[in-house]
């Protein structure tokens, strides 16, 4: 079983981001998506701390401590970029103005429930940040994650066991093994990574999987646009 590497997962997400989309990229792997946008597509990247039009990471000499993204890393603004305060930024999120949000996940359930903010560790306070706002607010929620946890246990489940971030919010899941839609009838496999078999995917998943026809993937991809 081979599967997608991190950059391949990011590139696969980028293929589903249409020209003109306003997109929020979460911390970590989702940030890589910006590096894989096709040259003929213009997407505007949003950062919940109050920026639209995020550009590439600056050279060390050009870093400005006042210009950071939601992960508190130095960023740049592209021409046309805009700066605004937090309340407006979350109005963009909650008000449905963000077309796509790409975020990491601990678990996703077959009903679209998302768990990505808290575990059961009580020695540290949980950190929610903007995750719950993004989960309910973005028009489409894409989860990018490893298909299984470090112990090999499934992260795609019938029901989440970790505390929920949002109910029924995830639209599409990108893992190292497959691209999977969350439909009214549960998980539907859109495509599998090269070298991965249906049996292997079943074994790595904690819920039922439906497999689409050969013709399905292209249509499913179109549905990712608003």
């Amino acid at each position, binding site marked *: 079983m081979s599967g997608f590497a991190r950059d391949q997962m990011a590139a696969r997400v980028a293929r589903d981001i249409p020209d003109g989309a306003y997109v929020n990229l979460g911390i970590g792997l989702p940030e890589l998506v910006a590096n894989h946008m096709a040259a003929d597509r213009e997407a505007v990247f949003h950062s919940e701390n109050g920026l639209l039009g995020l550009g590439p990471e600056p050279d060390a000499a050009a870093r400005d401590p*006042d210009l*950071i993204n939601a992960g508190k890393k130095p960023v740049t603004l592209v021409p046309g970029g805009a*700066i605004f305060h937090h309340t407006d930024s979350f109005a963009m999120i909650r008000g449905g103005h963000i077309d796509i949000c790409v975020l990491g996940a601990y678990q996703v359930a077959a009903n679209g429930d998302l768990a990505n903010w808290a575990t059961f560790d009580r020695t540290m*306070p949980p950190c929610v940040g903007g995750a719950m706002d993004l989960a309910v607010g973005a028009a489409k929620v894409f989860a990018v994650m490893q298909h299984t946890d470090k112990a090999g246990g499934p992260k795609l489940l019938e029901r989440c066991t970790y505390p929920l971030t*949002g109910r029924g919010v995830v639209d599409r899941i990108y893992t190292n093994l497959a691209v999977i839609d969350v439909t009214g009838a549960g998980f539907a496999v859109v495509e599998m990574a090269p070298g991965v078999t249906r049996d292997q995917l079943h074994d790595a998943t904690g819920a039922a999987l439906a497999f689409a026809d050969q013709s399905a993937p292209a249509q499913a991809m179109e549905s990712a646009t608003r």
Partner: protein
Amino acid sequence: MIDKRSPSLAAAVAGVADGDTILVSGFGMAGAPNALLEALLDLDVRDLIVASNNIGEDGVGLAKLIAAGRVSHLICSFPRADTDSPGMTLYRQGKLTIEVVPQGTLSERMRAAGAGIGGFYTPTSVGTDLCAGKEVRTFDGRDYVLERPLPGDWAFVKAAVADRWGNLIYSKAARNFAPTMAMAARTTVAEVDAVAELGALDPEHIVTPGIFVDRVVVLPAAERRAA
């Protein structure tokens, strides 16, 4: 004549009392009013309630105030710090309680306080642990949770430039929570890098109108770096 400039940091924070609620601007270190927060260490105040997106870092500003045991309750969206930091130690000892609030809800609760709104219904957190015990209502088929305003006795904000009326402009993403917090407190104190002559700021570019600001203290960037 209106002149909101304070002659010193001590004058800027004068009047903060035990148990007061302080809204503290900043996202990470961008826009954190560290000098105002550290000025509180010279006052004998404790049991402060602080609303801030983060818990402070680098042992300065909020992190320093928390480490000194001055803060008893933190209202926060992302209280991440090193496991062995003073803040986390106080949290585990029960000496610092933390109310985790979704980032957009935190901001909107302060906006509501500043705008005279008694509460609002948001879809954020419905069905999660953070909506436990709160009223949920269904409007047009969607569930929303009731959230209440979060007013401050004080707001400490960091801005780039002020004039003597307290009009403020900011530096890039250091703006973050400051305009909302400035509205939401009984007394708003702005720590700024520079003061402009009245009329020098373009009215089209003023982000926080001076009506929301009570005191201004200037701490030039050069001085800030040396401190």
